[in-house]
């Protein structure tokens, strides 16, 4: 999987309330509706600024806070292709992999707002086209690669009837 798009940059500790506020997430399971409010408290116009394929790039501890799976889903439905951060909060990280949103740990100090990136998921690297540099990505655990390759945890379960990491 390869993605190409421009960067929307955020800081450290972006919590799941900022990704999708509790006042919306309890109302509906319609992710297209929730996607319109993604990142709203940090940037009220965020949704309208996204071109399909764009990236969210952040500092450390992205996705901290609640366990709401609506957070990675709302990002995915807002047509963001992947989230890049220095580190992720663990529940968000699992939720993203389980629902098929690519999340990559890398040195995001090498990336600025508006930069254009190529992200090569299969080979684990990023090319910052704007700065003409290659950025290494911390590899995912094998278990997560397996789940991602199956398309998420639900397809994994459909395929094997349970966990199968052998």
């Amino acid at each position: 999987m390869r993605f190409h798009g421009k960067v929307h940059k955020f800081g450290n500790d972006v919590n799941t309330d900022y990704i999708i506020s509790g006042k919306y997430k309890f109302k509906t399971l319609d992710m297209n509706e929730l996607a319109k409010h993604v990142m709203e408290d940090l940037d009220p116009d965020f949704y309208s600024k996204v071109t399909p394929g764009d990236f969210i790039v952040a500092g450390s501890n992205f996705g901290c806070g609640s366990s709401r799976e609506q957070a990675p889903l709302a990002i995915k439905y807002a047509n963001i292709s992947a989230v890049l951060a220095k580190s992720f909060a663990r529940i968000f990280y699992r939720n993203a992999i389980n629902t098929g949103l690519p999340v990559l740990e890398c040195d995001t100090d090498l990336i600025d707002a508006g930069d254009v990136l190529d992200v090569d998921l299969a080979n684990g690297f990023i090319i910052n086209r704007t700065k003409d540099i290659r950025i290494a990505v911390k590899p995912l655990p094998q278990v997560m690669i397996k789940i991602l390759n199956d398309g998420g945890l639900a397809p994994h379960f459909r395929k094997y009837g349970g966990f199968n990491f052998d």
Partner: protein
Amino acid sequence: MGKTIIEKILSSHSGQDCRANDIVVAQVDFVMGQDGTSPLAIRAFENMNGKELFDPDKVALVIDHSAPSPLEGVSALHKIMRQFAREKGCRLYDIGDGVCHQLIPESGQVGPGSLVIGADSHTCTYGALNAFSTGVGSTDLAGALISGKMWFKVPETVKFVCNGVLPAGVYAKDLILYLIGQVTADGCTYMAAEYTGEAISALSMEGRFTVANMAIEMGAKAGLMEADEKTFAWLRACTDREFTAVAADPDAAYHKVLQFDVSALEPQVAKPHRVDNVSPLSEVQGTTIHQAFIGTCTNGRLEDLRIAASILEGKKVHPDVRLIVAPASRKVYLDAMAEGVIQRLVAAGAAVVTPGCGPCVGTHNGVPSDGETVISTANRNFKGRMGNSNAEIYLASPATVAASALTGVITDPREFLK
């Protein structure tokens, strides 16, 4: 080399002699979801071709976050949960029963050595009972509903040794806010916290739940404590089930061991808009507040309501302040009524709302207005958390919130405890 508490619990539940950073598939003892996460989990369950629950007696769904429903959309999601519970035969806690993290421990389903997952980030609360419990998302929950298992990366552990004696007027909430301020919001990311030391032993079980509850606010996967006589006495009041304490080995390997002396600790607050933006209360003393909230899975227990009532008794809430109280469970509510605690709170001007999450998550029961300031006993003060991104939230102990509700400004509760 010895093992930490979490290495032992994950070893016993995976059948593997596991250590930090191993990846294991482990059996879970109990699985819980709430109304913000269960509807998506039910959808994932169907999407996984799930037919039956792995064990209906080990599953509970709790309607607590937005209960009773304030909106049609929420009602539809609650209906999905009720139907699923009826069809699959699991327990459903409906509106008015209380907050999941009070109900599951009260039900006797979790104790020393248990492994529990819940689709709510504050599931780490049961670490106070010497259990490994952790928050997951809806899809992980669905996988566990079907298989009774989940995969885990065995976390490293940070040990918090809390020495000394908390001064009068300084509580478990002040202690955990202080610790979070020290290590910051990602101080324990991917790791477990073990809380130990004489200041932890001295806490009531209610206080221990408060401390374990906020482990997630430093990014921790779990907030574990040892089991002692208080733990077993608390459990005996809830269940006849037998549990065996799980202690860390003296030569267990820790990522870090942090030592604290709490003897000189002052009341603490978390300032807007971050839980780790912590300072002594004295720094913000006198800040005007418009709403005060006592409740949640952090501080809605009987001891919390008692402390608040003792400060509010015979007085009146400041005319420019709304005081909202949400007991953590029906049992807490009944016990607080039996003691006259609820009467004292209501007489002082409190509005008591349905046992549950109350206004914590911003869906109902007290959404602040633009430019207003709230002081709350909850665990999160993110911008917009209570439903309005133009409001500010301070987090503090029930004593501090009660004292501030009386004066209309952030107030040191020790003024009322003399």
